[in-house]
């Protein structure tokens, strides 16, 4: 097992920026009917320090998750796991694009994303790491959702991301065949409390 090595991330790809631009353009076109467009006012206020930190945390978490899903040892995964990883990776990339668009809109300049270098011996180790990270992400995102200072500005975009993470966590648990009693409630945590897990997910039991 290797501790994730960090090195500077490459500059954001043109493709991703273009995709986000096209998505926003499509959204704008979809709402361009005069009677509706007049009622829409997109908030572009700079994020408060609290919300900037929250959005930066989510940016970090999405970057990590993309790295994890990209690092899946494909040849050692069952077909069902491979299908899930493919679907989840697509979701995480969409999440990151959403967050990048939000960050641009609200003048948030998140930390330079890390690039992780994972190594997994097999499917069980991989899934356990995914489960640990997803649990941490959901708890941290819960803290973000509860503590965000401008909920009307952000939550319509952020809650779907959390919902996707919850869905992924449920599939990972099923793939692990976890037989523990289902948890009834999410336990939101301040992002600072779980950031150490995201900083080094394999060193804490992956």
């Amino acid at each position, binding site marked *: 097992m290797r501790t994730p090595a960090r090195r500077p991330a490459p500059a954001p790809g043109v493709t991703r920026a273009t995709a986000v631009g096209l998505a926003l353009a499509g959204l704008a076109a979809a709402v361009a009917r005069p009677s509706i467009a007049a009622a829409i006012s997109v908030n572009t206020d700079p994020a408060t320090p*609290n919300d900037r930190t929250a959005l930066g945390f989510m940016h970090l978490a999405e970057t990590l998750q993309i790295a994890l899903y990209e690092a899946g040892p494909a040849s050692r995964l069952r077909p069902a796991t491979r299908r899930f990883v493919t679907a989840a990776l697509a979701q995480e990339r969409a999440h990151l694009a959403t967050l990048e668009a939000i960050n641009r809109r609200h003048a948030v300049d998140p930390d330079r994303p890390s690039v992780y270098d994972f190594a997994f011996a097999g499917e069980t180790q991989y899934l356990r790491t995914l489960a640990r990270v997803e649990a941490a992400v959901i708890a941290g995102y*819960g803290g973000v959702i509860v503590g965000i200072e401008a909920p009307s500005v952000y*939550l319509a975009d952020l*809650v779907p991301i959390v919902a996707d993470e*919850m*869905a992924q966590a449920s599939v990972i648990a099923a793939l692990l065949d976890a037989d523990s009693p*289902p948890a*009834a409630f999410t336990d939101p945590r301040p992002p600072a409390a779980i950031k150490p897990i995201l900083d080094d997910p394999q060193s804490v039991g992956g």
Partner: protein
Amino acid sequence: VTSGKVTRRGALAAALATTLASCGSADDTSTLISLPPRAPQAPGSELLSMRQLLLAERLQQARWAAAATAATSPRVRRALEREAAVEEQHVQAIEELVISLGGTADPFTPGPIPVQPAAALRDLRRIEQTVAGAWRGAASGFVARETRAAALSLLGTEIRQLGVLDTLLGTSPLPVAPPPLAIDDAIVRLGPDLGTVPRG
């Protein structure tokens, strides 16, 4: 789920308390999200929504239990019974939250319940989809942190339960969160199953 009444009754309250305590520590300079400790409070409209969704959760509890009774496979029955127990936790926790917010828990009389196993599962999935959509809408729209935290927690469980149902029905391998639904719309959709619902 047999960890005792204290755990069941206090689950949501404990989660909320943990959030408030861990997020609002004044001497923790690394705190990123600050929440001042305070008594639970929410606008009247959100309290009404919680009362309505409490009935929806009671409906779900009844339907999970009914589906478990109708199941012919012991494995399926166990899975359904576990989720019925989770719904019981939801009901108790929301009830406590409603009361702590100054509201009252409304009486619930379940409507007709399908008795054929497959029909029971499909009907349950329809209800879960609707309620999960309502919780998603609530998590995005609630202003009060207490109700928002509750909505988010409940959304997570509903999504997982949709996954359980999809597995049992042999449909999608990856649960997809339903689109957000206005609570009024959810209540209308569930109307025939809910009976009398409190209105504003």
